[in-house]
């Protein structure tokens, strides 16, 4: 699954560490999601969507 996490993060001038802190997860998890190595669970995807104030489908895209 593709995602726009890196772009959205950059738009807000957030580091991976900032995003990790906001989501209460590790920086390595953010890196794994951004690089497509790991697809987050639905609860985490909703948490990410809530943080960016966007619907999930605008952040996570079908391959």
């Amino acid at each position: 699954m593709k995602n726009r996490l890196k772009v959205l993060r950059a738009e807000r001038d957030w580091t991976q560490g900032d995003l990790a802190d906001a989501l209460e997860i590790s920086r390595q998890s953010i890196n794994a999601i951004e690089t497509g190595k790991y697809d987050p669970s639905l609860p985490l995807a909703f948490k990410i969507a809530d943080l960016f104030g966007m619907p999930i489908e605008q952040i996570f895209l079908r391959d």
Partner: protein
Amino acid sequence: MNTASQPRIRKSYLWGAAFFIGTFGMGITARVLDWGGWQTMVAIMVPMLLLIPFIRSMEREKGISGCYSPAMRAYNRRAIVFALSYMIALFVAIMATDAVKPTGVLAYALAVLPSLPIIYMVYSMGKYLTDEADEYLRMKTVIAALFGTGVLLVVATFWGFLESFKLVPHQPGWWAVPIWAIGLGLGQFWQQVRDK
């Protein structure tokens, strides 16, 4: 990801190597030189203490690479308690058995004493998996644990048949945990290499 502050050779690898080589080396030396129970235990206690700097350096490096969590920290603290209490339990069981030559219930109690810290370790691993709030780190640990289980099944099956055909000597069942733990470590290392 910021890995600039990571040294070329990780300190934790060196501490880990010192811990494993020291512990196993001392155990083998004790067997070869036919040391007694308590001398062996005291000798092994020294390299066992290397576990503390090993875990601390691992924690520092995981913190730098952004893959450390409160659940991991709690697990590492429990691991130190497990390792040291295991050594003490083994020491007490061997010493008491040598000194008292127990029979009946006491013999059984002393024989199972060293297994109690290992059971605590199994519980501790389960607790880590339920406590870990970071689903990616949890998944990586589950994969490593499954890898360790696979290694254990392969080694036990392989050795079991060699033993059945009387080609190798019998080995005690407690080898299951060290073999599983080595497999867990290999699983973690494999994921680390794969993700680079």
